[in-house]
């Protein structure tokens, strides 16, 4: 187990380097002179030159690359050009909101997706199965902002049960009310993913010999499902939840924009509208680091659940 963990952690290093390289290349896609793109074509030669120097654009590309890697690896993700704060400061301010949102969505997804998927698998090709498949396919088809807007219209605008906008508050009840709709939105999408994977994973486990043996021995009902089948069926579910984390982050960006909720999504939108390329690049590094972290943790969890997993 320790050997496996160490190997898995070492494997994250080249992935991180590759991701940083991709981001470095992407950040240099800005056509023409980035300094002009940022300051506008009315800017004076001096201010353009100063900005180029500040961004390191006057140096050759390979030097910029090495400098970028060095900065990132020492924890310097650059500075927002509009607020003047460092990228990490900006991220720390809103990170709790995004983490809270994704955690709540994950919780909703597990609470509803696991039972739904299991039920669909047990009643295969009967109505719970068809209903479950159609619901999960619909959930998977929603772009995150479309479902968010429909929820907003239904529960906040028409029924007025919940607030239209999330505002900062210290009252815990208001805080939960603010969280409810965004979390429900992401939770529905997450439920769709988990239902689908649980169903197919349960189906393949239920066809295994050891389940037949257990049935023959007289194990039945809840015990068979919970103790024998679900435990093994969970392994692919954990992997897929880890893999879909990236999609979850992408959808949380859209959700935060719709509900005007503070978080990484609103930070990205702000960076886009103010053409703050430095902040944008820094945010991508943060996202990349997150995704690698979650993928690594998923693989480690995989090793924990299934003792057969090794790296050779």
């Amino acid at each position, binding site marked *: 187990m320790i050997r496996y963990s160490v190997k898995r952690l070492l494997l994250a290093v080249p992935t991180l380097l*590759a991701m940083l390289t991709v981001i470095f290349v992407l950040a240099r896609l800005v056509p023409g002179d980035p300094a002009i793109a940022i300051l506008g074509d009315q800017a004076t030669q001096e201010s353009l030159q100063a900005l180029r120097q500040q961004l390191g654009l006057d140096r050759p590309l390979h030097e910029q690359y090495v400098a970028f890697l060095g900065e990132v690896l020492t924890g310097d993700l650059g500075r927002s050009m509009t607020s003047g704060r460092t990228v990490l400061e900006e991220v720390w301010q809103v990170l709790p909101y995004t983490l809270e949102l994704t955690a709540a969505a994950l919780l909703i997804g597990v609470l509803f997706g696991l039972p739904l998927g299991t039920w669909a698998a047990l009643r295969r090709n009967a109505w719970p199965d068809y209903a479950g498949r159609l619901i999960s396919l*619909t959930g998977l*088809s929603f772009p995150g902002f479309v479902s968010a807007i429909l929820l907003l219209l239904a529960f906040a605008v028409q029924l007025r049960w919940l607030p239209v906008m999330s505002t900062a508050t210290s009252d815990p009840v208001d805080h939960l009310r603010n969280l409810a709709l965004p979390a429900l939105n992401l939770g529905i999408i997450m439920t769709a993913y988990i239902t689908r994977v649980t169903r197919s994973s349960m189906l393949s486990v239920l066809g295994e010999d050891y389940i037949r043996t257990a049935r023959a021995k007289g194990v039945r009902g809840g015990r068979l499902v919970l103790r024998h089948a679900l435990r093994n069926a969970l392994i692919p579910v954990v992997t897929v939840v880890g893999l879909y984390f990236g999609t979850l982050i992408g959808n949380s*960006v859209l959700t935060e924009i*719709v509900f005007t909720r503070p978080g990484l999504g609103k930070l990205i939108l702000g960076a886009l509208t103010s053409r703050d390329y430095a902040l944008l690049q820094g945010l991508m590094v943060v996202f990349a680091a997150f995704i690698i972290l979650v993928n690594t943790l998923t693989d480690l969890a995989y090793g924990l659940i299934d003792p057969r997993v090794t790296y050779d």
Partner: protein
Amino acid sequence: MTDTATPPPATRPSMALLVTLQRNRLSWIGLALIAAIVVMAVFAPLLAPHDPIKQNIIHRLEPPSAEFLLGTDSYGRDVLSRIIYGARISLMIGFVAVAIAMVVGSTIGILAGYIGGLFDQIVMGVVDVMLAFPTLLLGLMIAAMLGASLENLIIAIAVTEMAPFARVARAPTIGLKEREFVAAGRVLGFGPLRIMGVHILPNMVSDVVVLGSLWMASAIRTEASLSFIGLGVQPPTPTWGGMIREGFENILTAWWLVVFPSLAILLTVLALNILGDALRDAIDPKLRSENAA
């Protein structure tokens, strides 16, 4: 991420479609919906009751009525006509982006699988990184850096969707290049390009096309999302995501501005997903035996 090591049987895409339609009732609904949307896009000028771009301030923000079936927006433009024309952009971007991703992605995959060695490792390393990066964020970054326009949007979406095609094309290539008919081709003196193009490629066309129909749904979703953020085709060209972006400002008073384009996106993506899913079931031998049981 694991490779699908065994090459699936080479079924023709058209055959797969027939088998799918025969077995899966739901896929009929998907196909019918897609056909309707395509017809809508192609015959937009004939079907749209009003001009989608011309402003008509007298009729601004009118709720659905007999004259404007789905209401009007804040410039007095007919929402229904804009949705009908919007189908053109969504389908066109989805189709072109997936076609580019399909051609470039599977070329990369075949090359990596055929050449092997260090080249394969480096290329597939990059592909894995692209796979791990969320489609929306990658597309957002590319579109933001290149600037919002139709071409850049297509490039951004195509780049985000190349990786899965590379993976799907690479796995069977590794098996196929050891087969007798490829060896025979080499003995006959055919160059590597001819072997890859004429002998290897046809064996995976069905897989790649099925994957394409699945990713088309994703491409349309990404296009709508980027347009909603403001990185899509610029106004006044009607796009579904852009309509929701504009309508969002009036969400408290004019629900029809966001609800109808939302339904258009949802139905299109759902129809493509239903069809893609059924096609995958028909082609994947593992799922096929599951279905037969």
